[in-house]
């Protein structure tokens, strides 16, 4: 088996200058949301690490995550990323089909230490029959592939947390990769969750670049998300935050406040509870992000976002708080009126039974 080239070697082979490499490293640092001073460290790391084999598995998904990645407006970086890895299996992107395709996956799995990328959730209800590829259930395929993997990157909210397939009532018993590991259904490997519906393309490439550059899992939050992209909430990084602090809110999507770009909290923006890089990295090559274009954050990078109440209801506004209110009021009135009848009866019977006090009563 031929030795895989280091990334720097790979780039040099393509005739890329050191100056270009330096630019690449600076852009990569920015992409990974690392301080610019990290560029030399990146350059050094890229000189050492080898181009790993990557297997991309797609399960219950909409291909949105792949679309996002390929619509990345940093094709240079993207192409470099694909130069940096050996993408050995990807439904949508690979040329091979049928048995040849599956064969490619089996080949790649022969050398342990590959990276597994997953998009889509995995149905486990009824033996996992709700989604199969080449006659193999998603669960089985994931189980086999993960066995010898170095790490798993869950791309998108479905793979990370179950996403929309898992939304109530979850007919297929869909679950994310981490959940399957927690349930012991697949081997436990390091997992990086890159949620979002879809994730920001630059975040996908940034996370991969980080893993490849430093050969290690980046620091993660409690939900397994890289802190450099998911460490802050949208709200904290939002350019409209000053309006929130001043109490200036758009009340409808077409009022004065909306035109002036005021805070969308009252229109249901989930920015405060959503962790993602939208407010800084933005979308479409840094052009904009939902809040900048006038729509609140829907919280797509958080678990259960689909079932977390209306997208258009303020975060502090409850889902349906008064659903028992009428019943409770009636029950309260019933108890209260019941007590008042009892009390009045007790009081009047005490009055009726009143024995006029005499001097004798004073002496015990």
């Amino acid at each position, binding site marked *: 088996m031929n030795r895989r080239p280091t990334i720097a070697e790979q780039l040099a082979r393509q005739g890329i200058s050191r100056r270009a490499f330096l630019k690449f490293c600076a852009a990569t640092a920015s992409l990974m949301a690392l301080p610019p001073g990290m560029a030399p460290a990146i350059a050094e790391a890229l000189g050492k690490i080898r181009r790993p084999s990557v297997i991309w598995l797609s399960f219950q998904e909409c291909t949105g995550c792949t679309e996002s990645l390929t619509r990345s407006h940093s094709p240079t970086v993207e192409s470099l990323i694909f130069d940096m890895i050996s993408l050995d299996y990807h439904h949508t992107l690979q040329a091979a089909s049928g048995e040849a395709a599956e064969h490619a996956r089996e080949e790649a799995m022969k050398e342990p230490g590959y990276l597994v990328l997953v998009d889509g959730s995995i149905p486990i209800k009824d033996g996992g029959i709700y989604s199969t590829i080449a006659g193999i259930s998603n669960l089985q395929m994931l189980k086999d592939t993960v066995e010898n993997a170095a790490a798993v990157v869950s791309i998108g909210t479905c793979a990370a947390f179950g996403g929309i397939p898992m939304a109530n009532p979850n007919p297929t018993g869909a679950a994310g990769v981490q959940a399957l590991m927690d349930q012991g259904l697949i081997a436990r490997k390091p997992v990086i969750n890159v949620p979002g519906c879809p994730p920001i393309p630059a975040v996908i490439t940034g996370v991969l670049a980080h893993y490849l550059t430093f050969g290690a899992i980046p620091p993660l939050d409690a939900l397994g998300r890289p802190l450099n992209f998911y460490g802050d909430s949208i709200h904290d990084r939002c350019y409209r935050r000053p309006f929130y602090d001043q109490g200036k809110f758009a009340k409808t999507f077409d009022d004065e406040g909306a035109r002036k770009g005021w805070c969308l909290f009252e229109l249901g923006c989930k920015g405060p509870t959503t962790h993602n890089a939208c407010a800084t990295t933005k979308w479409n090559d840094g052009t904009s992000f939902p809040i900048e274009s006038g729509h609140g954050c829907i919280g797509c990078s958080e678990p259960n976002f689909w079932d977390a109440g209306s997208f258009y209801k303020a975060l502090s506004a409850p889902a349906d708080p008064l659903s028992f209110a009428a019943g409770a009021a009636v029950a309260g009135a019933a108890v209260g009126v019941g*007590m008042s009848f009892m009390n009045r009866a007790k009081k009047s019977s005490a009055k009726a039974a009143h024995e006029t*006090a005499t*001097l004798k009563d*004073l002496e015990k």
Partner: protein
Amino acid sequence: MSASLEKGVAVLKEMIDAPIASYFNSCVHCGLCAEACLFYTETGDPKYTPIHKLEPLRRIYEQEYTLLGKLAKMVGLSKPVTDNELEEWKELVYNSCTLCARCSLVCPVGNDIVYMVRKFREGMAVSGHAPEGLIGATTRAIEIGSPMGVKLPAVQAQMKHVHKDVGIEIPMDQEGAEYMVLLSSMEIMNFPEYLGAIAKIMKQAGKTWTLCSTAFEATNSGIQIGSSDLAKVIVNRIVEGAERLKVKTVISPECGHAYTALRWDGANLVGRPFSFKVLHILEVLDEFRAQGLLKTEGFEMDRMTFHDPCQLVRRGGVVQQPRNLMNMVAKDFVEMEDAGKYNWCCGGGGGVSANEDAEELRLQVFKIKKGQLEKTGAKTMVTACANCRIILEEGLEHYQMDIPVVGLTEMIAEHLAESKS
């Protein structure tokens, strides 16, 4: 549960009403009522916190009239009230509460604490937990007609004495008189000048008045001990007398509790509105003053201050009248701190003066009055309640202060313009 306790609880069940329920539910244990109570401020003992004096009543309310209280009692979280506990509370409910109602004025959530103490005494009295002294006074009031055991012959003797003294015959049982004058035992026994003062004032004003042979005594121990049934017996004498003599107005003497018992409790005790008016003597005097029927001459030159009897000012609403009258005859009239409705009690109201067990504590808490008085530098103290007067005199003597205590009515009478009448 003893029969007497059962009777007490039954009476409290009758007494507990929406205000009491509201008050207990509003209390946040802030302790501010303690700061308004002279028994706490002068002793520093937290057990004298007014709301704490009602602890057994609170439990009875909760256990009898709230669902959660019933449940708590059932599972043993809320202990039933016992005879021993009530006996323990006797000191708090009687000895260390003068029903002065200062606490009711400061409670930030608005609890009328004295209203509750008054009601709690109903249960305490019939379950046999009233103090001996008060039981004695009440027994005499019911059986003899006056808490100090004063009988009609004693009054008649005083009438003769006054007649000789001031030269005016004291009318008795005069039907159709405008005013029926009541006396308190203390006035009959200790301050006979009062009757003479009334005679002179009435003469100057040209008003008809009378005493009543069946209702000369105004004080009502039934109210103090907290028995409405017994208080009613006493009030009924006055109502019957006033109705028999067809008087327009009944004048309560210089006695705070006598006034509130008749003025505010009376109609509620007999269960119907009165056909006559009830006025305190100071109210009558101030009316006379306003109508020009009260003329005085000369002034007291010593510095004087006026002690507001709680039942007259805070519980009675008579605030401005004594000030008007003081200014008629006193050149150097100074107010004490907190004068008026925030005045501090002398320490002997609410039956405390009749309660020997409370004497030591009463003298201890008199310090507040002593301090107030010293600050004014007054040489004479004037008041309008015979009970306050006795207590003030005792207190001043105890603390070796040589300050005379005078009844306002008598002082006015002494300055009546003698000229024509």
